[in-house]
C-alpha cells in the first residue's frame, strides 16, 4: 500500500507543472504537406519564448515565471492535430494552448480546447467559419481571408481606375476547396458585387488541396481569355499549378495565388523568371518594420536566424506574445481570468495597423488591413498596397504578356 501511494505521488508529481513555470502546449505541422510553414511558425514561437524568458519570464501577479513551450508535430493531419491537443490538455496538463497552422487544422483543434475550457490562441486559422461557431476560448490573430482577397481587389481597382486595366476586367477565380479557399472566393465576389460593371467573373472553379494535375482547370482559364488570374492556393499547389501555367504559355495582366507568391522556395522551384509580377496579399511584411516594436521584432529575428522574417514567423511570434500579455494582464494562471483579459485585449502590435484586439463581433478573430506585395524582376517583393505603406506603385498590366 505504501509503495502504491509512493507511485501515485510520483505520477502526480510528474503530471503537475512546476510552480515557477508556465507550460504552454502547441502543435505544428512539422512534417507532412505543411511542414515548411510549420517550421516557420516554430521559429516565431521559439523567438517569443526566448525573449520572454530572457527577461526572467512572465510577470504573473508580481511573480516571475518561466514560459515553457511543449511542442508536438501534428503531421499536417486534422485528426492528429485534435488528438494531440487532447493529449496536451489531459495527459501533459499544459496550462494554455497556442494554435497550429492552417485553417482546417485549427478548426478541428479549437473544438478540443473549447470542450476543455482552456484559452486557445492561434495564428494559423484565417477562415471566418472557424470564428462563427460562438467559441468562448478561441482567439485568432489571422485576419479574415475575405479581407485578403478584398485587399488584392483594392489594388487591382486602383490600377483599373488609372486606366492600366480594361474596364470591365474579366476575372478567373480559382480556389482550393477548403474554408480558406471559400473565404477567398467570397472576398472577390463581394468586391465584384459592389463594383458592378467593372468586373466580370468568367471562371469560378475550386480545386482539390494537394492536387497533382491542373491541366484541365488551366485549360478552362485559357479558353475563357480572362484578364485577371486570381487563385488561392497553399505552397505545394502554387508550385505545381504555376509550373503548368508557365508551360502552357499562359500570361495574364494580373496574377495572384492569394497569400502565396513571394516565397523563396517557390522562386527556387520555378525560377525567378516564372514568378515575376505575381501579387500576394499577406498578413505582414518585414518592410513594415521601420520603427517601434515591429522594428524590434525584425532586428531580433535577424539576429537569431540571420535572415529577414516572413509573415508566418511574425504572426506566430505575435500569437505567443498575445497569450503572454493576456496572462500578465490577468496576473494569474486562472483560465477564466486569462480568457477575460484576452477578450478585452487592446495592445500595440507588430501587425499592420499597429493594434491588436479580438473583437467579440468577429468571433474573437483579429481584424486589420492586409498588405499586398508584388514580385519584381530583381527578386524583391515590395509592398504595393495600402498606399500609406507602399514602397512601389506596382506593375500592371504584366509587361511580359504579348
Amino acid at each position, binding site marked *: 500500500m505504501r509503495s502504491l501511494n509512493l507511485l501515485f505521488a510520483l505520477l502526480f508529481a510528474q503530471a503537475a507543472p512546476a510552480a515557477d513555470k508556465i507550460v504552454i502546449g502547441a502543435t505544428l505541422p*512539422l*512534417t*507532412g*504537406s505543411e*511542414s*515548411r510553414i510549420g*517550421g516557420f511558425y516554430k521559429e516565431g514561437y521559439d523567438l517569443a519564448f526566448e525573449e520572454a524568458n530572457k527577461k526572467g519570464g512572465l510577470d504573473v501577479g508580481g511573480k516571475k515565471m518561466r514560459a515553457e513551450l511543449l511542442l508536438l508535430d501534428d*503531421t*499536417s493531419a486534422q485528426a492528429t492535430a485534435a488528438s494531440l491537443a487532447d493529449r496536451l490538455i489531459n495527459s501533459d496538463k499544459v496550462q494554455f494552448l497556442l494554435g497550429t497552422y492552417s485553417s482546417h487544422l485549427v478548426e478541428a483543434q479549437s473544438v478540443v480546447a473549447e470542450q476543455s475550457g482552456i484559452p486557445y490562441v492561434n495564428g494559423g486559422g484565417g477562415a471566418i467559419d472557424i470564428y462563427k461557431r460562438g467559441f468562448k476560448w478561441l482567439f485568432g490573430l489571422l485576419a479574415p481571408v475575405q479581407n485578403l482577397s478584398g485587399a488584392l481587389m483594392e489594388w487591382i481597382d486602383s490600377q483599373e481606375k488609372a486606366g492600366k486595366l480594361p474596364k470591365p476586367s474579366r476575372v478567373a477565380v*480559382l480556389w*482550393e*476547396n477548403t474554408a480558406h479557399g471559400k473565404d477567398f472566393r467570397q472576398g472577390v465576389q463581394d468586391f465584384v458585387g459592389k463594383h458592378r460593371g467593372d468586373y466580370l467573373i468568367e471562371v469560378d*472553379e*475550386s*480545386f*482539390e488541396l*494537394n*492536387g*497533382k*494535375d491542373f*491541366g*484541365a*482547370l488551366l*485549360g*478552362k482559364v*485559357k*479558353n475563357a481569355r480572362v484578364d485577371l488570374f486570381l487563385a488561392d492556393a497553399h*505552397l*505545394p499547389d502554387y*508550385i*505545381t499549378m504555376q*509550373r*503548368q501555367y*508557365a*508551360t*502552357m*504559355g499562359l500570361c495574364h495582366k494580373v496574377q495572384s495565388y492569394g497569400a502565396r507568391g513571394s516565397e523563396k*522556395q517557390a522562386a*527556387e*522551384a*520555378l*525560377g525567378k*523568371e*516564372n514568378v515575376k509580377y505575381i501579387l500576394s496579399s499577406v498578413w505582414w511584411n518585414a518592410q513594415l518594420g521601420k520603427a517601434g516594436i515591429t522594428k524590434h521584432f525584425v532586428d531580433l529575428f535577424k539576429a537569431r536566424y540571420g535572415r529577414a522574417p516572413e509573415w508566418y514567423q511574425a504572426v506566430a511570434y505575435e500569437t505567443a506574445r498575445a497569450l503572454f500579455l493576456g496572462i500578465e494582464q490577468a496576473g494569474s494562471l486562472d483560465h477564466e481570468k486569462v480568457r477575460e483579459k484576452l477578450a478585452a485585449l487592446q495592445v500595440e502590435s507588430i501587425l499592420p495597423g499597429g493594434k491588436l484586439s479580438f473583437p467579440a463581433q468577429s468571433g474573437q478573430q483579429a481584424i486589420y488591413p492586409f498588405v499586398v506585395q508584388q514580385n519584381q524582376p530583381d527578386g524583391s517583393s515590395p509592398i504595393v498596397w495600402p498606399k500609406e505603406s507602399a514602397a512601389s506603385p506596382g506593375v500592371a498590366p504584366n509587361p511580359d504578356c504579348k
Partner: protein
Amino acid sequence: MIEHLLDLTVSAFLLAGLYATMAYGLGLIYGVLRVVNLNHGGMIMAGAYAAWWAHDQFGLDPYLSIPIILVLAFLVGVLTYAGLVRRLPRGAAGGVQSLLLLFGVWLILRNAAYLVFSGNDQTVLTSYSTKALPFLGAQISVNRLAVFGVALVTLGALHLFLTRTYVGKAIRAVAQNPESCTLAGVPVQRIYMLTFGLGTALASLAGALATGLYAFNPGFGATELLKSFVVVVLGGLGSVAGTAVAALILALVENFSILVIPSYLTSAVGFVLLVLVLVLRPGGLFGQRVLG
C-alpha cells in the same frame, strides 16, 4: 470550344503517360505473384527522392539518373522479395499478410525519408522545367511529353520482354500456372523474385519521372498508389496493354469531367469508375488476361 477540347485531349494523353508508368509495376506484381504491393507508393516516393538527390548533389538530370535508379530499385525489390515476400503463402491465403507486411515496409520507408530528408517539399528545377513545344495551337510541356515518351517506350519494352524473351515467357507461364511450371523445370521462385524486382523498379521509374512535374515530400506516393490501383483494376489485372489503355481512359474521363462537374471532384471520378467496373465487369475492361 474546339481549341479547349483539343487542349483537354492533349492534356489527357500526357497525363495518361504518367498514370500508365505508375501502374505498370503494380499490375505486373499482382498479375504474377497475386500480391497487392502496397509498398508501390513507397517506391514511387523513393524513386522521386533518388532523382532529386542525384540532381541536388551531382547536378545529374533526372532523366539521366533513371538507369541507375532502375538498377538500384530492382535490387531493392529483389531483396524485399527474398527477405520478406517469399515467406508469405501464395494466393488468397497470403492476401492479408502480404497487405500488412508491405504496408509496414512502406511506413518504414516513409519514416526513414522523414528522418533523412525532413518533411519539406522538394522540387527539381532544370533548364527545361517550364519549356513547352507548340502543337496545334496548344503548348505541350517538354517534361510531360518526355514522361509520355518514357511511358510508350516502357510499354513497348515490357511487351517485347514478355513475348520475345525466355524470361518473359516464363513470367507469363508462371502467371498462368505456377504448379505446371515447377513440373516443367521453370525456376518459379526466381521468376517471382525477378518479377518483384521489375515491378519495384517500374514504381521507382514513375517516382523519378514525377520529380519534373510535382513538388513532393515523404508522404508522396499515397495518391499515386490509389490512382495506380484504379488503372490496374480498370485495365484488367495482369494486362500490360490493358493498363496503358486504362490509364488513357482514366485521364480522359478525369480531364473531360471538368466540363460538367467542379474541378475538385474530378479525381473522385476515377473512383466512381473503379466501383462501376468492379460491379459491372469485375475482370476489368479488358478481362483477366495473361500478361502480354
